[in-house]
């Protein structure tokens, strides 16, 4: 098992290298640079600014400088936020995104799998239809509609929760963003679980378990669920990476200082180093989470063995 993990991690290094290289050069293709704005820089000043940030060196040289920096853990300065290095921005931003995204995924997994299972067990009955209809609305309503709606109801009209703001990560500031982030995921996971569970409940080994006289609860929870969860686990790998690296929409609406907006803002600002830092974080997370997914597969499906 540990040999398997080691091999996977080693294999991920060339993947990361390709990602970093492609992202680096792709960013530079977009017209406009970090210092273009309404108030034009006088040419002499612009020259000095570019030199200060090493942006006047040949692209390959810049690439090499960046790569060697990253290998030593230096992600470079932010071109837009002068007072912070990319490392500092990621260090303050990632925990915030992780908190909101992590809680959202946990909520989504718990509620989604639960609802999906209930719907599968009561297939084609009233409960099933209600759950699935709710799931559809959850998927169909975009989060930039849902989030303001939640803040209006709970923040403005009822005044139960803050409308926005991070509050240092206080629980009351987390409630609405976590719910808003989790809702579409709950819907999707519920549907996924239901479909997979229905299929699994028709499988031979479940029929055997029932024939053996096991209680329905044991059949479902101990035996069927494991098999049914395989597609859900596959989905959860990338979904977790996505949620944990922050949603631009949720973070902007709720004023959460996460790294989600660094992807978009960074690109719009041509803040090359910040975008690269965010891309690397995301890539590392995807690689790690895919590895975790594969390992969980091994736990759930006895037919899968990792050597």
């Amino acid at each position: 098992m540990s040999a398997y993990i080691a091999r996977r991690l080693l294999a991920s290094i060339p993947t990361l290298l390709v990602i970093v290289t492609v992202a680096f050069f792709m960013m530079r293709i977009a017209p406009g640079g970090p210092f273009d704005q309404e108030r034009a820089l006088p040419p002499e000043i612009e020259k000095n600014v570019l030199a200060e940030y090493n942006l006047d060196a040949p692209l390959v040289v810049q690439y090499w400088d960046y790569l060697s920096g990253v290998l030593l853990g230096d992600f470079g300065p932010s071109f837009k936020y002068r007072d912070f290095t990319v490392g500092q921005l990621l260090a303050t931003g990632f925990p915030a995104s992780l908190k909101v995204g992590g809680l959202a995924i946990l909520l989504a997994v718990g509620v989604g799998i639960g609802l999906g299972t209930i719907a599968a067990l009561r297939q084609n009955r009233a409960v099933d239809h209600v759950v699935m209809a709710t799931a559809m609305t959850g998927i169909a309503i975009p989060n930039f509609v849902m989030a303001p709606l939640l803040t209006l109801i709970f923040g403005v009209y009822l005044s139960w929760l803050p409308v926005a703001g991070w509050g240092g990560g206080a629980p009351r500031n987390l409630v609405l963003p976590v719910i808003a982030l989790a809702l579409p995921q709950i819907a999707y996971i519920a549907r996924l679980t239901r479909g997979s569970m229905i299929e699994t409940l028709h499988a031979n080994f479940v029929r055997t378990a029932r024939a053996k006289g096991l209680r329905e609860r044991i059949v479902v929870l101990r035996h069927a669920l494991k098999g049914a969860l395989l597609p859900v686990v596959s989905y959860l790998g990338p979904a977790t990476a996505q949620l944990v690296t922050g949603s631009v929409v949720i973070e902007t609406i709720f004023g959460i200082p996460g790294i989600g907006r660094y992807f978009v803002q960074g690109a719009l600002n041509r803040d090359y180093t910040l975008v690269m830092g965010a891309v690397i974080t995301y890539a590392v997370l995807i690689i790690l989470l895919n590895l975790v997914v594969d390992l969980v597969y091994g736990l759930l499906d006895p037919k899968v063995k990792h050597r």
Partner: protein
Amino acid sequence: MGAYMSAERPRSTRIALGLAAGICLAPMGASALAAELHIANSGEPDTLDPHHVSGTWENRVIGDMFLGLTTEAADGSVIPGAAESWTVSDDGTVYTFALRDHTWSDGTPVTAEDFVFAWRRILEPATAAEYASLLYTIRNARALNEGSMEGMEALGVRAVDDNTLEVTLENPTPFFIEQLTHYTAFPIPRHKVEELGEEWIRPGDLVSNGAYTVVEWVPNSHIRSVRNERFYDAAKVAIDAVSYYPAEDRNAATRRFRAGEIDIQYDFASEQIDWLRENLPEETRISPYLGIYYYALNTRKPPFDSKAVRQALAMAIDREGIADKVLRTGELPAYSFVPPGTGDYGEPSYVDWKDMPYPERIARAKELLAEADHGPDRPLHIQLRYNTSENHKKIAIAVAAMWRQLGVEAELFNTEVKVHYNDLQQGDFQVARAGWIADYNDPQNFLYLMETSTGVQNYAGYSNREYDRLMDEADRAGEGAHRRELMHEAEAIAMEDMPNIPITYYVSKNLVSQAVQGWIDNTKDIHRTRFLSVQR
């Protein structure tokens, strides 16, 4: 008060206890609760260093921290700041400032050397300060900043002694005193910069000479400033702490305002205006703002090298329609390049067709196009570009429809802001939306955009020898009617040539809670926290 009451005690005792508790707690409550202000700022600052910023939102944070030689009063007018008084030489080029006795927030005295140090630093080419050009009014500043002169000691500023600062200008500059309110002219703590280098602006190490000092900055969450006890006027400062939130999502910020989490929102979303006027009329503050929204025409290439075409397109725009029906937030139709109300200018030089009824203008525009050999049988195809934004899009659609009456087909093209300005600076456009907010309250700040020597900021590529000559003479004329006349003449020429089509003058749109006192609407939209107070 329930904790102090018990069912067993007689009623009179309960009342007495209650009163006593109330009397004891009330003053404690009043002083223990610090007066805090919460502001939704329109963006996240790039930095706290006044030498590397250029936005209005940065001015709000930095301008609360530092005090320039002069500063803005609550109504936006210019009042003495770090300088108590000043004298001007007869030829108007040498200013001598007497600094007031005050200190940085760590107790170190503020001296004239701090100003000399700051201005040398911002003009130093190696600093690459984006906005250094604002100080080009000072002798040798431009040459030193552009690198054609060496040795910052040549800069026209010197410390006569600790409390006296002498500034020598290139030309007599009537708006110089006003210019000193801008953050490019702020002092910075020399002792801290020498000690810490670039780290001097980190909250915690940061010292300021203004009413507040930043103590905390969580990127994309908030910036928190607390009162500077050593501020010379601290006794009159009512608010103890102020938090600035980078509220890029304007609608979310308005919801926070409604929930009472935010006291002031700068720049609310225009589409909310109807709802706000109906539901929060007292809080909705709309006020004229020194800025112009215009369409730049690329005069370097056909068809915009033809004056007739430019004039025709300008005449065909129904500005009242745009202001009243498209924008609906009180913007004023613009028939001149300098907004009316700009300092010491009187009525700007309007276009001569300002009072022509619209149908007549359309007819005249068609004639002009025909003269330039364009019309329904030889339609003009042009590209109208703007940077991504709801309002820019609405205006562009309206203008394209208005131009269609002339047989002009306008293709709309929108790009994000960096690409937009990059292309404009390269001259890669036909018609493009642009905007200009005044740095200081003087018509020169608008008119210089059309001078040949201005460079890339003159997007239209306009070059008129007479215009340049008039503006140059005005620069050297010194304050007074003669200077005004010269600028009026120059503007008249530009309005005839029409390289930039003025569309509307800006307004500032803010939400101010009724709990906030001391807010005065002004054309600079500057409201320093030291003059505000809250009554919750």
